[in-house]
């Protein structure tokens, strides 16, 4: 009785505003659109079939590799940063951690805008590049896929540093020293001892970047060009420009499945690992 009283408010709210609407998206993907921006009568598979068109395949492919590239850059930068944070002295660590966390709290749009003005034809970076001779006045730094990846890395990097730091903090660095004593080169010790030691943090870091990256919409919208659109942009266009809700739903279903795939893969791998080593508990950080 008491359990229901405490559970019902949040349970019913999320059932009504999260679970049901998500199911509705699946449902609407099989309905036709009417010409007035509403939902037509009957059922159809045409919307889903239309997604097989090469135009959409291009966008799905781009969404995937832009997200993968962003994740790779984030992890490559986050691992040394998390390592340095975990090895810093207690006093310095508090300050450094604060410095990593603050950008994570600042407005998402402001951070994108800051880059838009830096990359702008009249902006600072262009002037510096021209002065150094790395760019000519015709080079466009904005409205291309490179700018999209750069700003995505900027936005998601704090998210990937935190789980790696959390795992590195628990890591026993004497293991690395032992490896060195036994003759391992520094980089080999890092690769074969440190990285496996922070595995759970790495997995979390990859997921917290890759999943939101797949759903990116604002960043390609502001700093990307027509040739750097991602699935998110198409969903938004179907909603705001064409008013075709079934089409937007079908695209969302594809995105949901794309997000579920890495999550399920991790879950299956984790299960398998647990079966092999039943007594090892993998700490989860996020």
């Amino acid at each position: 009785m008491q359990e229901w009283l405490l559970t019902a408010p949040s349970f019913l709210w999320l059932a009504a505003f999260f679970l049901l609407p998500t199911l509705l998206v699946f449902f609407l993907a099989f309905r036709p659109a009417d010409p007035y921006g509403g939902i037509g009568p009957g059922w159809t598979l045409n919307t889903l079939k239309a997604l097989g068109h090469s135009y959409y395949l291009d966008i799905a492919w781009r969404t995937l590799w832009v997200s993968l590239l962003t994740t790779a850059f984030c992890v490559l930068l986050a691992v040394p940063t998390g390592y340095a944070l975990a090895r810093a002295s207690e006093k310095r660590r508090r300050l450094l951690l604060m410095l990593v966390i603050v950008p994570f709290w600042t407005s998402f749009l402001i951070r994108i805008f800051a880059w838009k003005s830096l990359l702008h034809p009249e902006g600072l970076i262009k002037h510096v590049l021209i002065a150094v001779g790395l760019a000519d006045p015709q080079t466009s730094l904005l409205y291309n896929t490179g700018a999209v990846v750069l700003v995505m890395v900027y936005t998601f990097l704090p998210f990937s540093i935190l789980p790696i730091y959390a795992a590195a903090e628990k890591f026993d660095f004497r293991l690395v020293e032992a490896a060195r004593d036994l003759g391992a080169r520094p980089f080999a010790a890092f690769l074969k001892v440190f990285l496996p030691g922070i595995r759970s943090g790495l997995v979390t870091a990859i997921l917290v970047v890759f999943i939101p990256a797949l759903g990116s919409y604002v960043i390609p919208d502001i700093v990307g060009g027509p040739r750097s659109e991602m699935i998110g942009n198409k969903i938004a266009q179907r909603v705001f420009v064409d008013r075709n809700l079934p089409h937007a739903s079908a695209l969302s279903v594809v995105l949901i499945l794309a997000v579920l795939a890495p999550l399920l893969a991790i879950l299956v791998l984790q299960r398998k690992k647990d079966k092999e080593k039943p007594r090892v508990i993998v700490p989860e950080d996020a």
Partner: protein
Amino acid sequence: MKRSRFPLLIMGLVLLFFYLPIIILVINSFNASRFGSGWQGFSLIWYRRLLHEPEIWAAARNTLVIAVLVTIVSLILGTTSALALHRFAKSRLQRVHYTLIYTPLVVPEILMGISLLMGFVAAGVGLGLFTIFLAHVTFCISYVALVVLGRLQDFDFSVVEAAQDLGAGWWATARKVLLPMLAPGLAAGGLLAFTLSVDDFVITFFVAGPGATTLPIRVYSMIKHGATPLINALSTILLVLTFTIVLVSQRLSRSNILEGGV
């Protein structure tokens, strides 16, 4: 054994990468130049112009009203949820409940935005400030619940039992024992909900409809249609406000929500 300086170097570059764009934006907000391409002298002209932008102020008022209401409602729903999850941790219902609380955190924002929009359209609810409020509560519940749950897991429940043994009723126990112990967690969860609501753009944009404007929606349309230095000034004000909130929340709670991330 000499330690490699390479990680330190990368960390330094990463911090530079984080702060340089923000610092340049703040400096440019005091720049008299219209395009920010060169320094044309210190000026407060963009801040003064901001005073004469009634649309921005109306949007800011909407944002604030929504954020306050969202904070209150999501604190109530998130706290009851955390209490249930903690108290009845073993029950099957709570396992489903936990999944329901956790999943919104991993779903990309755009999916939540579109599904809420479909839901409102299907239910015939007119889009506007009210639907923005409903949507914000939906994503804030999970954050509040997890922050409060973290706090609950730290504390000693025998105190609650002691109070009840000593004859305190349900209400007296809640008010005199549970609430003071939970206060730091509630403050942290509330601030998190407040900042998330003030900041949200993607979900808000989907459920706002044509008329309703919040500050992020206003900022977005300013960015899209001609980036004037007004945004620099507005952003600087918002940055100062966020930093203050982060510092206050750090002081209020020694809990680890800041370190825990998402």
